[in-house]
């Protein structure tokens, strides 16, 4: 699966610092975490494949909704919710992949103002902050999932699909995202440490 970016169409506001092909593991990753990093690359590929299918499926489901309404004059409510589940899933499950190519954009205005060592420290702190937030979010998603599972919660529509489906997708996605950032933080720490050791 190619991860190239179309020439001339930047994906975000500020260009990612150094887009690395998704199939590669940062060589500075501590050897202890290497298996995890390599596993994440593979898992991310699977998740992107899922995301692709989900996008197509959501388009098909919404189209079928238009067609059935027109042909049979019947309105059904499962299409919107199915599409919501598919697209929520695609979004959260691909979060880690987007993080692995540094595709979550930020305002990089200060990076040119700081000396390079200080800028590395800043990037590390930023990653630690992101990690704390995502880890908290992941943890709260699992508790939410547990609650929805135990209480057999459903959505409020007449079709009433169980809520553990989207919550589970969210919990899995945020966990992968947290792991991805953790691996990146470990690599940055190691790189920073070796740099300071050298000088």
């Amino acid at each position: 699966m190619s991860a190239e970016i179309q020439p001339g169409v930047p994906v975000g506001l500020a260009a990612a610092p150094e887009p690395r092909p998704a199939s590669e593991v940062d060589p500075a990753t501590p050897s202890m975490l290497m298996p995890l990093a390599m596993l994440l690359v593979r898992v991310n590929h699977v998740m992107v494949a899922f995301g692709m299918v989900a996008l197509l499926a959501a388009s098909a489901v919404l189209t079928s909704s238009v067609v059935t309404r027109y042909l049979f004059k019947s309105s059904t409510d499962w299409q919107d919710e199915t599409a919501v589940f598919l697209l929520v899933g695609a979004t959260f499950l691909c979060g880690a992949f987007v993080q692995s190519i540094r595709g979550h954009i930020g305002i990089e205005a200060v990076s040119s103002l700081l000396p390079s060592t200080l800028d590395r420290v800043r990037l590390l702190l930023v990653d630690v902050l992101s990690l704390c937030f995502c880890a908290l979010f992941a943890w709260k998603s699992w508790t939410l999932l547990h609650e929805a599972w135990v209480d057999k919660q459903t959505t409020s529509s007449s079709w009433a699909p169980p809520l553990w489906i989207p919550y589970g997708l969210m919990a899995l996605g945020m966990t992968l995202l947290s792991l991805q950032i953790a691996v990146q933080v470990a690599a940055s720490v190691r790189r920073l440490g070796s740099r300071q050791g050298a000088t």
Partner: protein
Amino acid sequence: MSMLMIGSLFGLVTLLLMFSGAPIAFALGATAVVFMAFFMPAASLDTITQNVYEEMSSITLLAIPLFILKGAAIGRSRAGQDLYAAMHVWMNKVPGGLGVANVFACALFAAMAGSSPATCSAIGSAGIPEMRKRGYSPGFAAGIIAAGGTLGILLPPSITMILYAVAAEQSLARLFLAGIGPGVLLVFLFAAYAVFNYKREFRRAQTAFATHGTTSSMLDREDFSMRQKVEMLPRVLPFVVLLIGVMVALYGGFATPSETAGLGALLALVLIAVVYGVWRVKDVAPILSATLKESTMLMFIIGMSLLFSYVMSYLHISQGAAQWIVALGLSKWLLLATILLLVIILGFFLPPVSIILMMTPIVLPPLKAAGFDLIWFGVLMTIVMETGLIHPPVGLNLFVIKNIAPDISLRDIIWGVMPFVGLMLLSVVLICLFPGIATLLPDQVMGPVPAAR
């Protein structure tokens, strides 16, 4: 702690985290979580995920990835070049026709793809070299494309408008319609300027020829036969049909805006499969993965922005700020001007998505109190945010142009774009003077706004 203190602290922490360079999504989420922990009941932290899910699980918001898919499908095919070539052939007789053709091609492509950078890159990669070959100055050529690309967020379906409709609780279908009039106005202004500037550059080339004998390719003539013109049509027609079909589905009452997104995405994929033979997995996968990259990034920002505005409203910061603005007692138009100026300034740093979700809870109540139509304001705000796409320092479109025409200096691009920024601000003034430009079409199609609004 007083309201003012919390509000200022909130603003300060937001700015600090945003400018630390953290991904916008995580910066907004972290700010929200920190303030929940300190200033809200302990249990509120337990519900952050539920909060984000409930806000995000609206099918209108989740149509965004599908609109992006439709844009990516069309943007990655040869449709842009074909559309451009057809326009070029058909507009040849008009003086400055090539520039006008580029503006029209941008507008049509933007309406199909709904993405500003994709439009710049698709039309610009064919249009800029052609215009320069014909003697247009590089800055002028770049300006036309950069400005033409911004039409993408004004003509439906526009992602910024989807967000505004959700944030302001306005009808999306109505907002889409309200964007068409101003979109056409801008196309007209851009085209008029293209003709005007072409004539100026043409005269300069003529004088140069008369005095020094330097020839310019601008003075050459080129003619196309009727046959050539007709041959261009079949490649373009399917996309025009797609465009019109989607519009009919939406406004004929056959489909909701989100269903239109699914239908449009699927039709676009089918069309590029049939017309351009793009159907193999290896052809379609890059389209889908590019879509996922952009939409995931965007949806994360949207989800976290929603959490952020939830906290802002729970702590009464947005209400406080809104009351403060009302209490300033600004006159109606001064209030509007101030708010639009603020949008321009925020546009220096933030993508439209975040501006809308952060600003609307604060500025809409005062605007409503002042008696402004919120659909009309949504259009104004969109145009003002569009200018942010083509002026420095962020000016995404400028960098897209720099990417497809690396030999044009950024300085030339920026100067070439500036007249277009002026035209966009002119259109803002015109829409203020004649609100009908935006509101007439939705009122005609959907009936006047219910008085309850």
